[in-house]
């Protein structure tokens, strides 16, 4: 088990190097550059000032040299400074990261708590009214564009009913609230973004647990359990559910990249002060160091998620451990 963990952890490093390399090269090969974005055709800015700016961010060097310098600093956790406000990139990301993690963790929790029961009940009562209705519901949720769903919810619950706040996480007035009220306000702000995220990711998890349950229900040991006269409830909960839920752990790892990808657009709509919005703003401003930083941190989060789900899977299913 220890070897397995070490192997998986070591695997993260080449992945990071590969992904950061692609990001870096694509970013620098693409037309348009921060210098002209910043100064444009402004005649007031002299050639030497432009050259100075280029030198400051290594933009005057060939791309391989730039990448080498970047990756050397990267291993000391130094992502350079933002071109927009000169703050260290790592500091900018770290102030935004908790908001993203909070949103994703709550969404993931909500998705798991709703999707698994839906899948289990659908499998047990296959082709029942519940199964058919839920199939349609999760499919519609999956097909609905997240940003559109967000707009509809903002319109209905924000503008029309004025039930939930439509943007931001901690407005100015939270500074004057006591601890309990702060948490309540935060949860209040989480409702709409979490709902949108959850609706979008319900489908894959609930369908997966449904088909996994159905598959296990066809196994011989389930037949045995029924044949020896166990009550149906025990067969489902103790024999089927336990075995069916095993592979679902891996879906967690696959859901994470989707959630993180989704955060770039959702955080922009809900003005959520997270890393996704930071990344969007950085791209729009050609802020190279921040773009790299956000890309790499998003990848690290994804890789850690996959790592954790692999480890959990190995923990719950001994066959994996012995095979590798």
């Amino acid at each position, binding site marked *: 088990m220890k070897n397995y963990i070490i192997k998986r952890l070591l695997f993260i490093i*080449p992945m990071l190097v590969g992904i950061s390399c692609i990001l870096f090269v694509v970013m620098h090969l693409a037309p348009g550059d921060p210098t002209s974005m910043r100064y444009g055709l402004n005649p007031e800015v002299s050639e030497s000032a432009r050259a100075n700016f280029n030198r400051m961010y290594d933009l005057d060097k060939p791309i391989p040299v730039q990448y080498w310098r970047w990756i050397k600093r990267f291993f000391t956790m130094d992502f350079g400074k933002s071109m927009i406000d000169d703050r260290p990139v790592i500091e900018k990301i770290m102030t935004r990261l908790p908001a993203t993690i909070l949103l994703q963790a709550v969404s993931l929790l909500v998705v798991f708590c709703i999707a698994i029961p839906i899948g289990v009940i659908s499998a047990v009562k296959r082709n029942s009214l519940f199964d058919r209705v839920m199939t349609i519901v999760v499919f519609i949720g999956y*097909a609905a564009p997240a*940003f559109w769903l967000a707009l509809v919810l903002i*319109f209905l619950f924000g503008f029309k009913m004025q039930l939930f706040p439509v943007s931001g996480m901690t407005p100015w007035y939270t500074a004057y609230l006591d601890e309990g009220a702060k948490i309540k306000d935060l949860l209040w702000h989480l409702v709409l973004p979490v709902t949108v995220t959850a609706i979008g990711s319900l489908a894959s998890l609930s369908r997966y647990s449904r088909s996994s349950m159905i598959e296990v229900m066809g196994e011989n040991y389930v037949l045995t359990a029924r044949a020896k006269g166990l009550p149906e409830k025990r067969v489902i909960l103790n024999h089927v559910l336990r075995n069916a839920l095993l592979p679902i752990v891996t879906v967690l790892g696959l859901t994470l990249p989707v959630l993180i*990808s989704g955060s770039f657009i959702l955080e922009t709509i809900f003005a959520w002060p997270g890393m996704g919005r930071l990344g969007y703003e950085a791209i729009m401003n050609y802020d190279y160091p921040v773009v790299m930083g*956000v890309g790499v941190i998003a990848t690290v989060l994804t890789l850690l998620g996959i790592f954790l789900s692999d480890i959990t899977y190995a923990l719950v299913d001994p066959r994996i451990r012995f095979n590798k």
Partner: protein
Amino acid sequence: MNRRITFGITIIIILALVAIFASFVATHDPLELDLSLEGRLQGPSPEHFFGTDNLGRDVFSRMVYGTRISLSVGFIAVFISMVIGLFLGGVSGYFGGWVDSLIMRIVEVMYCFPTFFLIMMVITFLGANIVNVMVVIGLTSWAGLCRLVRAEFLTLRERDFVHSAKVQGVSDMRIIFRHILPNAMAPVYVSATLSVGGAILVESALSFLGLGVQVPTPSWGNILTAGKNYIDYAWWLTFFPGVAILITVLSFNLIGEGLREKLDPKLSESR
């Protein structure tokens, strides 16, 4: 025929017809402006089925033309990703060894990539237009397909017909593409159908961020984006394009799921 597949295919055929005959279906010129006070932001009426937008353009006609964008982005992006996925997956599964390890490492990198971030970045820097959107979505979405094809090849390459082809001296590339590939296509169709829906969603999300098809060319995504500023008094601007995207994606997903159930006897035995 499975009911889901029938439903999905019907909708897709209707949409395809609308896209092809857009100039006959549209009731107005999608680019015709009417900047008079009465002409702008009209609600749905017999004259303008889905109302008019902030520049007085007919939303129904714009959406009819937008169908072309969504469908072509969906199909072409998936076509690109299929070409890459089939080729790399086939080569990887057939040859094995270091070729396989190399390709699988690349696939793993693609899997863990924050894909939407990469797409956003490339489109912003390369310039937002429909060709870039299709190509970039295609280039970033082949990893799943590649894995699928490889898995099929791993089992198929041990079969007798492959051995007999080898003995006859058929070239490797011919064995891969003429002998094995046709037998590996079933799960590919499922995955590709589902990907079309995904590609349409990504395109609309990009349009929403202003990175998709540029105005005045109508696309469902950019009609929606223009409408979001008027959401509190012109709901039809955001409602109809959103529903159109939803129904289209839903149709592709239903076809894909229906096909999957047909192919996997475990899921469909009691039907």
